[in-house]
Each structure stands twice: as structure tokens, then as C-alpha cells.
């Protein structure tokens, strides 16, 4: 996966040499960051052997809240702190359905996706609203000493680096690898699964907030595209849908690959179908290569 990532990066750089300037790097990461956050959310759920369709819904709820509830009045900016918590609650609801209700993750999150999407649509029926201006300009800034998007990416990576050495991470891999044995070894499977869905909700909400800040508006329909893209990015990054194998870092690389493909096709002014076919074809090729490798290993 890394060679592919590097190759696409090189192509991108060759096509537009000025991409290596700081503002351009900042912009590229800014474009990729929402998908990266959602991908990380999807990734940890996939690692346990589940799937979260509702990330799109959670994302738009946070998105429209940021553009309305938070940005509605001058003194309301502090409410931004509450939005991730709402994401945590929505994710926790998914976790409850899966853990307590024994729903298949696909169906549970399919249902909550519709619900969350509806809630977002109720809050903001058509695209609009406004985000706090100061925050938005901070988020959009790519000419700082360190562009905000780069800063946020570094923070994300740092948190992930810390998280990787926690017991929660080990338990997630254990559950994905073999749920029964994980339980025998003393892992609290239910609590871990619940936490995973809740954290995924939190991350999806962060993605929604960030997207609102960089666009300056809210839109209750932007979430849908991220659902399948996040799964795609994870698969490109080598996450197994059966759980237990793959790394968050590679999933992030997968998200970048998708972003690069979009970037390259738009720079070359290729017709839109090229990027669709490229992404889909790549997915099948990657899956094909991987299953061959597994076969012969």
C-alpha cells in the first residue's frame, strides 16, 4: 500500500510542482482531513469486525450543529465543546444497539444513519448557516507558521500513536482476531465494543465540525459520500473486513490515496468517470492482490 501512496504522491507532485509549498500542503491536507477522521472512525470499528454506516449521519449532525447552534450567536462559540460529546452519545447509541440489542452492526448503523441524517435535515433543511468567523478563519488558515490542517493532522497522528499502546487498542485487535478467545482471556468484549462505536461517533463528529469550519457553512447532505469512501479507504489501507488485522496508519494512507486520485484527475481535467473507475478498479485490484497473497502465504 505504501508504494501506491508514494507513487500517487509523486505523480501529484510532478503534475503540480507548487504543491510542495506550505500553503499547498496545508490545502491538500485540509481537503483530506475530514475523510481521514471518518476513516479512522470506520477503521477502529472494522478492526473489531463490525461496520459503522452511521458515520455519515453523525458527521452531518455535528456539521449542521456547528453551522447553526454554535455559529448562531456571538457568545455561543463555547457550545462547540458540546458537539463532540453529542457525537459520542450518537456513537454510544450505535454501541448500545450492537452490544445490548444484539443487532448486526450493518443493520443497526443503517437504521441510526437514517435517524441521524433526519435529525440533521431537521436542524438545517437546506445548506447554509454560519460558523463562528474566528474559528473558521483559524481552521482555514494555511499561511501560518504551521498551517492549521497540518497541526491537526499531527495532533491526530500523535493521539493515534498514544492510543496504539493502550489496552483498549490491544483489546480491539483481540476481539477482531477472535472474539471468543478474547473473552476467555478476560477482555470485557461488550464494554470494548461499546467504546469503539462511541469513539467512532466522536471522531465522525470531529470530521463534521472541521468540515463546517473550513467551508464556513453547514450542509445536511454531505455525509453520505463519506460512508462508503471511509470503508474504501480502510480496505485500500489493508484493513480486513473480518476484523483484527490492519493498522490505522495505513488506513489514513488509504484516505490520502483516494484524495490524490481526486486531485490528479481534477488537475489533468480528466472527465469525472476516470476518478470513479480508478478508485473502484484500485479497490478490486488491491483486494485481488491481497487475497492471492493470503492464499499463497
Amino acid at each position, binding site marked *: 500500500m505504501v508504494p501506491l501512496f508514494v507513487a500517487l504522491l509523486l505523480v501529484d507532485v510532478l503534475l503540480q510542482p507548487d504543491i510542495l509549498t506550505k500553503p499547498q500542503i496545508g490545502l491538500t491536507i485540509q481537503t483530506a482531513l475530514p475523510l481521514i477522521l471518518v476513516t479512522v472512525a470506520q477503521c477502529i470499528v472494522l478492526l473489531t469486525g463490525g*461496520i459503522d*454506516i452511521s458515520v455519515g449521519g453523525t458527521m452531518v449532525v455535528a456539521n449542521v450543529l456547528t453551522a447553526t447552534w454554535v455559529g448562531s450567536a456571538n457568545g455561543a462559540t463555547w457550545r462547540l465543546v458540546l458537539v463532540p460529546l453529542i457525537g459520542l452519545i450518537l456513537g454510544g447509541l450505535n454501541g448500545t*444497539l450492537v452490544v445490548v*440489542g444484539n*443487532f*448486526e452492526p*450493518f*443493520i*443497526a448503523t*443503517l*437504521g*441510526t*444513519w*437514517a*435517524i*441521524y*441524517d*433526519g*435529525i*440533521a*435535515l*431537521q436542524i438545517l*433543511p437546506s445548506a447554509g448557516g454560519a460558523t463562528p468567523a474566528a474559528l473558521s478563519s483559524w481552521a482555514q488558515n494555511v499561511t501560518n507558521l504551521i498551517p492549521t490542517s497540518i497541526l491537526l493532522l499531527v495532533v491526530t497522528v500523535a493521539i493515534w500513536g498514544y492510543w496504539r499502546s493502550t489496552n483498549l487498542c490491544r483489546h480491539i485487535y483481540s476481539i477482531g482476531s*477472535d*472474539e*471468543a*478467545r478474547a*473473552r*476467555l482471556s478476560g477482555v470485557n468484549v461488550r464494554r470494548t465494543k461499546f467504546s469503539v462505536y462511541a469513539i467512532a461517533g466522536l471522531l465522525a463528529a470531529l470530521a463534521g465540525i472541521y468540515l463546517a469550519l473550513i467551508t464556513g457553512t453547514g450542509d445536511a447532505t454531505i455525509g453520505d459520500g463519506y460512508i*462508503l469512501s471511509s*470503508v*474504501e479507504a480502510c*480496505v485500500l489501507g489493508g484493513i480486513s*473486513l*473480518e476484523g483484527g488485522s490492519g493498522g490505522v496508519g495505513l488506513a489514513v494512507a488509504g484516505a490520502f490515496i483516494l484524495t490524490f486520485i481526486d486531485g490528479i484527475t481534477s488537475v489533468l481535467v480528466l*472527465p*469525472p*468517470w*476516470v476518478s*470513479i*473507475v480508478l*478508485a*473502484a*478498479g484500485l*479497490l*478490486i485490484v488491491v*483486494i*485481488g492482490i*491481497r*487475497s*492471492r497473497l*493470503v*492464499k*499463497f*502465504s
Partner: protein
Amino acid sequence: MNTVLHEKTAPLAIAAGLGRSVMAAARHQPAAAGAFALTLMLFAAATAHSLGFASLSNVRTLSIFAAFVGLAAMGETLVIIAGGLDLSVPWLIDFGGIALSQMHRSLHINLLLILLAVVFCGMILGAINGLLVTFLRAPPLIVTLGVGGLIEGYLVAVGTLQSSGDVVPDGIERFANANIGPLPDITLIWLVLAVLAACILSRTGFGRRIYAVGDNARAARLAGIHVERVRFATYVISGATASLAGILLTGYIQTAYVGMGADYLFGAIAAIALGGTALLGGTGSSWGTVAGACTLTVLAGLLPVLGLNTAAVKIVYGAIILAGVYFARALQQIGDRDRGSHTLCEIQPAQPDSDSETAVGIDPSRAVGRLGTRQTTGLGR
């Protein structure tokens, strides 16, 4: 005399017979019966709210929309029972519609031939899904998503027909808007095919194999069933029904465009789940999916009547999916219990005298079985 008497009692006898068979069916497919009952209740509620809901024209319209959901979900029902998943359905629908228009414009041949050609192409696309899933042994979710992307790319590439209603063949347009007796053509086609699918599932060897493969693919293989062939066939069938849904949808809305099938991506799966088919495979029925399609359609028709906006509709829709799946599962378990199984509901296969294999969700012996399977796969099977 005799005949008069006969005429008088005949409807009663038929009704009684019908009632009996409905009861029998309900016992056999409690989840499907539950979804049908839910549909009726929703329908009654809507009618109570506004009488026009039960008008013939409205029922016809609803039945057509249900037919689209039902057709989109029909092949996928088989795929899911066999333990797979087909996310390429919406793009297959797009393909059906657009290919119909394209072929009609460029080829000047009999409409029926065009229809057959489109469905055949849909089957080939389904076959690609099937080949990739069976021979790459890749997760169907990703493979069918990828194939869907490829189809979308292709459709966008060959040039979309943005609302070019004039290219939709007149014949199919007329057919899609006509009725046979009280029922619209489209509904009739759907119901006939649903009966066919139900027969395949319950009365043929192929149907048996579909259930077997979905319940336990490893056991099916060791029992001498060609797992790959069965799975492959279900994807081909899904390609056929989805592209047929696309053709009829194009005829009905008199246009074809990329994205016209988008609503059916999760809609079809929701209908299947509402009908009591487990997404993990092995159980379910064609009737369940028919019932699920009806429930979703009546719901979608009812909510605006109640004065709910799109947002509220979505929320209720999601809640009904969750509640419906929950109750479908509960009903199915009650049905299983009636047939002598307490164990299924606890997902605890009975192990009265088995020492070395337990049952429970946490089942180490199964874990070992899984391990063994993995090992053998690793060995080059």
C-alpha cells in the same frame, strides 16, 4: 339447486381455505407475516387519517413503488440468504435504465430483443460480481462496491442522458403505465417473479443449496455442495432482477440517469431485513422481502400524508427499520420455539452430552473450528 348452493358456499370455502393457508404460511414465516401485518396496520392508519389513501389509484401507485423496491431486493434476497451481499444493485438499476435508452437509440431492433439484451448484460455484470467474490475470495461488500463503482464510471463515461425522456422506448413507457385488470403491469411482473423466487427457494434443489451455503458454507462444501457455483448463480440472478427493475423504473419515470437507483442501495437491504432475512445468511424468504418492500413503501407514502417533512420521514424510517428488524427477529424466534427449539433464540445449539463442544455465543470449540478452517485455507485450498 346444487349449483346455487355451490355458488353461495364457494366463496366461503375459498375464504376458509385461504385463511387456513395464510395461517399455515404465517406459522412457517412468522417474520414475513409480521411485516405484512405491520403493512396493513400502517395502511389502516393512513386510511383513517385520509380516506384517499385507500383509493384505487393510490394503491396502484404504492404497489408500483413497492414493486421497484421488491424487484431490486429480489435477487439480493437470494444473495443474502446464500451468505453474500450485493451493494452494486443501485448501479445495476442505473445500468438497466441507461442501457435500455442507449440500445434503443443506437440499435433499431425489436424492443423485446433489446429488453433481453439489457437483462443479459445485467446478468453478465452480476456474473462479474460472482466471479470476483468466489474466485478472489474477497469480502462481497467491497467487491460489489468496487464493481458498482466501475459500472458508474462506465455509465458516466459513455455519456449520460440527462432527462432525455424521448429516448425511452414508447413500448416500455406504455407497458410501465398500463394495468392488467386491477393491477399495474409492473406490480404483476413483480408478484409473478416473487412467486417464482419463493418456489426456487422452497421447492428446488438449488434453493436448498442456497440455504445450506448461507447457513454454513464450510459444512456445505464438505457435504458435497459446490459452494462457489451456488453463490455465483445468486449474483447472476441479482444482476438480472436489478437490471429489470432499472428497465421498468425508466419506463415508469420516463427518463434514465446515473443515480436513479441510489435510493435502492440501502432501501433494498432494509426491505430484506424487515422481512426477517438475517444479513448473515442462512435464513429468510422471498415472501419476507415482498412484505418488507410493502412496509417500506406504505411507510414512505404514509408519512408525508401525516404532514411530516422529509427530515421527520427519515427519522421515522430509520426507527421503523430498527424496530421492524427487532420484531422480525423476535417473531422468527417464537416460530422456531414453536417447532421445538428453545435453543435458537439463545443462539445456543443444544449440547446436552457434548463435553468438548459447547454452544453459547462464546464458543471456544467454534473458535477452534474457525481456526482449523483458516489453516486449511492457508494450505492452498
